[in-house]
């Protein structure tokens, strides 16, 4: 045993008493595992692995330690803030078992250094990730390297673990994931009705003023609102043209340029955003026939109501106090001043990236969202609540992560001892289901033969407008965003092999701004997208449409037919409970949208959703009725630990 740190302990180790007996014990000690992520789940997982006597562990995480991690990522302490998670986690875990070999990488798993050969080194890969993009990537790498993967996720009290093995089970991408929540542009720009609409607007505004300008993130009134049906907007434009109104979809002065020209004058910005633009919206009378019309605000005459009472402020933390509009305006002024300085400090042409943990950025979004909410008669929110929504913070606790990391190792033990067919997808619920299960094990599902990732010849069809979609959009939003490639090469299957996108820098950048039609792409054209790193090739059939609903740029169609009823299909081994507890013959596993599972069994008569908080009963009690497999919204989507799901 080579172990630089353990030294004299190595001899003790060999004889340590253990629950595990041979051969499982030997399989564990001889295995090589990769832990992807050293955050909430990763810390717990590393502890379990070293204590269970896994000897060869590699761990990778690109993140550094933050104060808000310390309530659960127990391998880290205050003095470690700012350091590499992977490195500190390794050092802490080695203290639990000095007889382990751990290699730590402070790096992104999508870095090309970690290719298929890197993955092939491992007996097992264990995911402890918090975002879908990295999960997609590791899924592909494990498929390419044919290494079993244990996938996991947590969100608050809920969690999930599953096992992915090429050819045997569903891969991470076999079931389409629900798209991330987006809001129609006209709701954000013209007719917000919920706090989140104002928060999205405020984040857009941040980018317009200080960040990367994005045409999709316009904050000015939208005259092309379908509700206006033409004439109303035209009239409004005529009325308000001139002045310093820069919105309206007609005048194309950039918000940024205008803000810079005023020297980021808070009063002027306020007047334009919260007075002039609002008056402009009011002129679109059609919008307000069935809505409460917005009330423009006057910088010099702000209301004082709505704040947290002074007496309450002692018992609340700062962030949970509700700001009055007057206070919002003051914060608006101060945060703009600070952001202006941050921008100036970065030199010409610099841009700020919105970060929930940057005080001024968070202040700005809080006050801008609340001022807008006030104008539209929408309840204002505390900075604490707005941070959750704007930063997409998924609450996270030590206990859920501990349970899930424990289950990951239980699945790993089964895989290592050759019993992968006994592995389950296990859900941690908030309350036991009607069959008393707090942890709900479900059979693994076989691969989807139409999966656009793990099937033999992956192929999809995408609807888009070939005359408006650019090569850049194809690459960023479709090939990378939708289909999860990291460094794609794309060619047109036109007999000439025209290269549209190259993964080599500098080769195809000239194509970026061109539309697909300029390359002869028509409805029915086939594109071959290939990611060398992921060892993954996908054929994309282009279907031209003039327009998609809700301003979508593209839509994946006919990607996967609804899989047929699964539960009656015999699994490689159905007697997963061992001889002592025979599985009831009619037992079925059905997944619910919200991570909730019910197993259908004839014993369970009445739906008892009241007794089991949050658990809905989906299937009929009749065991004859085919059980339709629901779209999987497993931990994968719902359950991500920290700060993901960009708005």
């Amino acid at each position, binding site marked *: 045993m080579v172990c630089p740190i353990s030294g004299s302990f190595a001899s003790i180790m060999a004889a340590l008493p253990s629950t595990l007996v041979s051969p499982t014990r030997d399989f564990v000690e001889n295995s090589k595992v990769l832990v992807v992520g050293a955050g909430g789940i990763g810390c717990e997982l590393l502890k379990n692995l070293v204590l269970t006597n896994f000897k060869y562990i590699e761990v990778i995480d690109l993140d550094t330690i933050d104060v808000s991690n310390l309530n659960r990522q127990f391998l880290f302490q205050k003095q470690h803030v700012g350091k590499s998670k992977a490195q500190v986690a390794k050092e802490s875990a080695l203290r639990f078992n000095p007889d382990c070999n751990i290699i730590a990488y402070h790096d992104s798993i999508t870095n090309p250094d970690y290719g298929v050969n890197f993955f092939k080194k491992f007996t097992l890969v264990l995911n402890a990730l918090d975002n879908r993009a990295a999960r997609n990537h590791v899924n592909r790498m494990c498929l390419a390297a044919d290494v079993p993967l244990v996938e996991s996720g947590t969100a608050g009290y809920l969690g999930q673990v599953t096992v992915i093995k090429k050819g045997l089970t569903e891969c991470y991408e076999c079931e389409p994931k629900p798209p991330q929540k987006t809001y129609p542009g006209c709701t954000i720009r013209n007719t917000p009705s919920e706090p989140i609409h104002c928060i999205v607007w405020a984040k857009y505004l941040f980018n317009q003023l200080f960040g990367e300008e994005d045409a999709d993130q316009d904050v000015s009134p939208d005259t092309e609102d379908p509700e206006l049906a033409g004439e109303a907007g035209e009239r409004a434009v005529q009325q308000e043209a001139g002045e310093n109104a820069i919105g309206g979809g007609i005048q194309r002065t950039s918000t940024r340029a205008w803000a810079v020209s005023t020297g980021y004058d808070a009063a002027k910005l306020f007047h334009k955003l919260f007075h002039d633009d609002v008056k402009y919206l009011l002129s679109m009378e059609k919008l307000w026939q069935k*809505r409460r019309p917005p009330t423009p605000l006057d910088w010099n005459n702000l209301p004082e109501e709505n704040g947290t009472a002074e007496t309450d402020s002692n018992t609340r933390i700062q962030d949970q106090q509700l700001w009055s509009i007057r206070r919002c305006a003051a914060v608006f002024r101060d945060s703009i001043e600070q952001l202006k300085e941050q921008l100036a400090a970065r030199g010409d042409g610099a841009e700020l990236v919105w970060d929930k943990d940057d005080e001024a950025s968070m202040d700005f979004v809080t006050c801008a969202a609340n001022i807008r909410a006030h104008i539209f008669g929408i309840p204002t929110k505390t900075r604490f609540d707005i941070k959750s929504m704007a930063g997409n913070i998924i609450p996270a606790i030590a206990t859920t992560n501990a349970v899930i990391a424990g289950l990951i190792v239980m699945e790993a033990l089964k895989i290592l001892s050759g019993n992968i067919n006994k592995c389950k997808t296990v859900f941690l619920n908030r309350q036991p289901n009607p069959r008393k299960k707090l942890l709900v094990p479900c059979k693994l599902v076989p691969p989807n033969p139409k999966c656009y990732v793990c099937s033999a010849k992956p192929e999809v069809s995408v609807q888009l407008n070939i005359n408006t979609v650019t090569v850049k959009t194809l690459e960023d939003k479709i090939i990378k965003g939708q289909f999860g490639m990291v460094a794609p090469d794309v060619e047109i299957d036109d007999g000439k092999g025209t290269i549209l996108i190259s993964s080599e820098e500098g080769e195809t950048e000239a194509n970026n701004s061109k539309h697909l039609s300029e390359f002869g792409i028509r409805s029915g054209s086939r594109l071959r997208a290939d990611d060398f790193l992921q060892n993954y090739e996908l054929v994309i059939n282009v279907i031209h449409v003039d327009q998609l609903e809700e301003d979508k740029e593209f839509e994946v169609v006919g990607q996967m037919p609804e899989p047929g009823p699964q539960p009656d299909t015999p699994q490689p081994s159905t007697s997963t409970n061992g001889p002592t507890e025979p599985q009831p013959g009619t037992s079925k596993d059905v997944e619910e949208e919200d991570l909730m599972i019910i197993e259908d069994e004839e014993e369970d008569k009445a739906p008892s959703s009241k007794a089991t908080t949050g658990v809905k009963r989906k299937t009929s009690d009749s065991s004859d009725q085919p059980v339709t497999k629901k779209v999987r919204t497993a931990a994968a989507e719902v359950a991500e630990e920290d700060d993901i799901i960009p708005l």
Partner: protein
Amino acid sequence: MADGGENGAISEAEAALYDRQIRLWGLDAQRRLRASSVLIAGLKGLGAEVAKNIVLSGVKAVTLLDHQQVTEEDFSSQFLVSRADLGKNRAEASQERTQNLNPNVKVTADTEDVKDKPNEFFTKFNVVCLTCCSQQTLRRVGHVCHDNGVKFYAGNVHGYCGYMFADLGEHDYVEEKPKIVKADKEKGEEDKEGPAGKKAKVDTTETVMVKKTASYCRWQESQTVDWTSDASSKAMKRTPQMYFIMKVLLRFREDHGRDPAVSSREEDKVALLRLRDDVLTEMKLKTDLVGDEFASQCFAALSPVCAVVGGVLAQEIVKAVSGKDAPLNNFFFFNGTDDSGMVDCIGKS
């Protein structure tokens, strides 16, 4: 029972540290956590997991109680002691690492034997969590806690399986429910009618608190169920097998003064199977109710099993002291060989 008391507000530093959990259970729950004292007796793998989770959550004080010494067996599940602590008292050896998890929590080690502690000792705590204890101690402390309004927990991990028990007496708690917003009505008052026929909907950002009460039976009642009665024998079919395995393991502890040991694996297996027959027969149950497998799977403690049971147990303690969310009533059983994690209410008539 120690009076929690609301000594001071949550500081900004605490708010930053506990941010991700305050976002889950709220500031009031965090404030109650911060005022509570927890006793953890038995610092093997499960005790270590519970201690870690509870200290991280930010309670006021945790007392680690264990009269035994660190053994080699601890190194496969007890991460609060180091290799150098072999032979030292387990509570003392665990103190430093436990304290390092969260400097805001007062962590004390107590090296006395839980069975020698007088009844008054337990009433100083808001929560008492016993692991590695005998039936006798569980019964006595269970009664003391029940009679004095102390939240009582018991748990053990044996190899691939483990369980926890809760007796919260009469427990008041609140549940957060999403607020149902009737868009039409609410908006209608202000602006005639909402846009395009909106239905009643759930506003995920607004919630209401609903007050509830749960009542629990004593540990002793959970151990003395008459399985021959009509109702019980019917319920038995759906009672997790782990309950009966627990009874067998507690009897083993009673008879041998220790748990099944890796060093005497083969003899202990035989003893376990014999005890299974005895225990089930005494309960007037068939001995084939529990298969033989358990006897080879209940040695030492598997770290991931401690993590699962300790995670569930600690979350229950958090629920109990914060008075937030419906607590489990009253057993949780985990069997790592088939990933089953069952909740069952046993002993309450």
